[in-house]
């Protein structure tokens, strides 16, 4: 069965979701990530969805779950690369993902995660959930 690759980049784990995910793959990813987080003691998870032309409530829930699991393991999650039409649709669906931090692309996402890891109590520069 195909697997979504998880890369270690500095203190973060980088996941790039490239394909249309079905349930088994989504569950496998969540499982894989929690294992790797514990193994590597990574402090951040960067999820790149720039290749996704659609995010429905199932994927939305998966993303929320990943952020929640990462939080329990003291890691920050940042979602990057959401396409405008996906953001518009998610908002219409009522899925605003308030518990996940976001950035425009991988570069900014990494910068944000590093800031969050180094300034955990959030300075004026912290962004994310209101």
């Amino acid at each position, binding site marked *: 069965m195909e697997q979504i690759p998880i890369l270690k980049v500095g203190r973060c784990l980088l996941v790039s979701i490239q394909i249309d995910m079905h349930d088994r793959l989504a569950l496998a990813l969540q499982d894989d990530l929690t294992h790797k987080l514990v193994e590597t003691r990574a402090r951040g998870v960067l999820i790149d969805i720039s290749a996704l*032309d659609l995010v429905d409530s199932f994927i939305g829930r998966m993303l929320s779950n990943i952020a929640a699991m990462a939080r329990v393991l003291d890691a920050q999650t940042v979602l990057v690369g959401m396409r405008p*039409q996906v953001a*518009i649709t998610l908002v219409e669906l009522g899925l605003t993902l308030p518990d996940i931090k976001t950035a425009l692309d991988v570069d900014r996402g990494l910068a944000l995660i590093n800031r969050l890891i180094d300034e955990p109590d959030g300075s004026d520069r912290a962004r994310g959930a209101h």
Partner: protein
Amino acid sequence: MHVERTSTLEVRTSEDVVKVRQEVRNRTAAAGFSLVDQTKFVTAASEIARNTIDHGGGGIARVETIFSAGKRGVRLVFEDAGPGIADIALAMQDGYSSGGGLGMGLPGAKRLSNEFCVESTPGKGTKVTLVRWKMPKL
């Protein structure tokens, strides 16, 4: 109103949901929908397809390109022979918390469509019809 093209797909497994999305994507693109409108409707289709599997025990999806009063549109009909919805009004209420989780996906799909209709008989099955029209462009 007439139907220009129609195809029927099985909706039983999670791979079928992917196929439904691709078919709706192709149809809405062929009908000239804007990218945003395509994405909205394909997402609506995905929501209802999942419902059909999770709550309806599986069923079928009919994807139709339709033409009416000078407008082209895409109509989706999802049917299952599952337990049905006991209280449609309740199911149509926003079950989404700000964390975005529970609920049957019906109110969300309705917001992403121009026309939306749910018919259900407990014990017999459910039929959900969604239509999105191509908006006149500049």
